């Protein structure tokens, strides 16, 4: 288990360095083409919701995945809390803490 984690960490470190070093070390002189810049800017915008929404809306079990969309599903309410607070530019820790607390309270009540 531990060896596998280090394999993952070193792999992550290598590919991340490959995103930082080449253009700086070779002193790229020209700015990147506009459409490439736009794509690089769009990637985090697209990847972060692609990470988050399935964790919230898809329940995975050994026999398959199903949508978890009911109003009695605490993470749905936690997600609403995050979107509202983060849109209002509330501090990061406060936003995450409020969402976590919402889920904990709903679970305790349910």
């Amino acid at each position, binding site marked *: 288990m531990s060896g596998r984690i280090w394999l993952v960490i070193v792999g992550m470190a290598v590919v991340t360095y490959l995103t930082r070093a080449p253009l700086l070390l070779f002193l790229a002189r020209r700015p990147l083409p506009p*459409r490439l810049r736009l794509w690089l800017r769009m990637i985090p915008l697209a990847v972060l919701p692609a990470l988050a929404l399935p964790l919230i809306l898809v329940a995975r079990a050994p026999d398959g995945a199903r949508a978890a969309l009911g109003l009695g599903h605490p993470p749905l309410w936690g997600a609403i809390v995050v979107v509202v607070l983060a849109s209002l530019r509330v501090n990061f820790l406060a936003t995450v803490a409020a969402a976590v607390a919402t889920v904990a309270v709903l679970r305790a009540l349910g």
Partner: protein
Amino acid sequence: MTQIGTAGRRVREGLVASLALVPSVFVYGTVFGGLAVQAGLRAIEVLGMSLLVFAGASQFMAVPMIAAGASPLAIVLTTYIVNMRHYLMAATLAPAFATFPRAWLPLVAHGINDESFAVAVARQNPPDPWVFIGSVLAVSGSFIAGVTVGIGLGGLVADPARWGLDFAFPAVFLALAVSQLHGRADRLVALASGALAVLIALWMPGNWHIIVAGVIVSAVAALVRDAEGA
């Protein structure tokens, strides 16, 4: 001597300009350290990842995937995609480092991060290399300090799901996503990608929905949106 003097002064300038970010970067590190320990990573692994990878969003992404036993290839590829935005920053920083001692560039490159990039570019464009380095020192110092504190705190909570802490990961991703949205077109990209990822996750096991939805939707957006404003 004078040159070293000015360099030192500009490093300090970058440090001071980044002080306002120190508390939030520290807290971000603390949340990461705590959750990573909760997810079953050992302290040395959490610290090692933070020093070697030093890219918060991708680290947050990796932890639940590691805990769920995802394939190393999927984790590493997702990390690469999440961190591709560094190309943008490196390309913008490169001209500023043209006269900089070359031997230091491999180390400087490792310090590239969103916050320091924003601080350095906001002060002057092309940015001042020493101001950027000063900011990297402040940001990396507070991130690693935060992670260390988080590792200590994370061991204190015995039953994470009871406190809703398993929801902290999606909450972090969603908060990061929302904080990057500027305008309707951005929101459309985020919604489309999230919806596509949900659909893929419903019929495809594993974690490939993240890369597939993220790459497809960002590429389509880059093709159809007006590129000049980017």
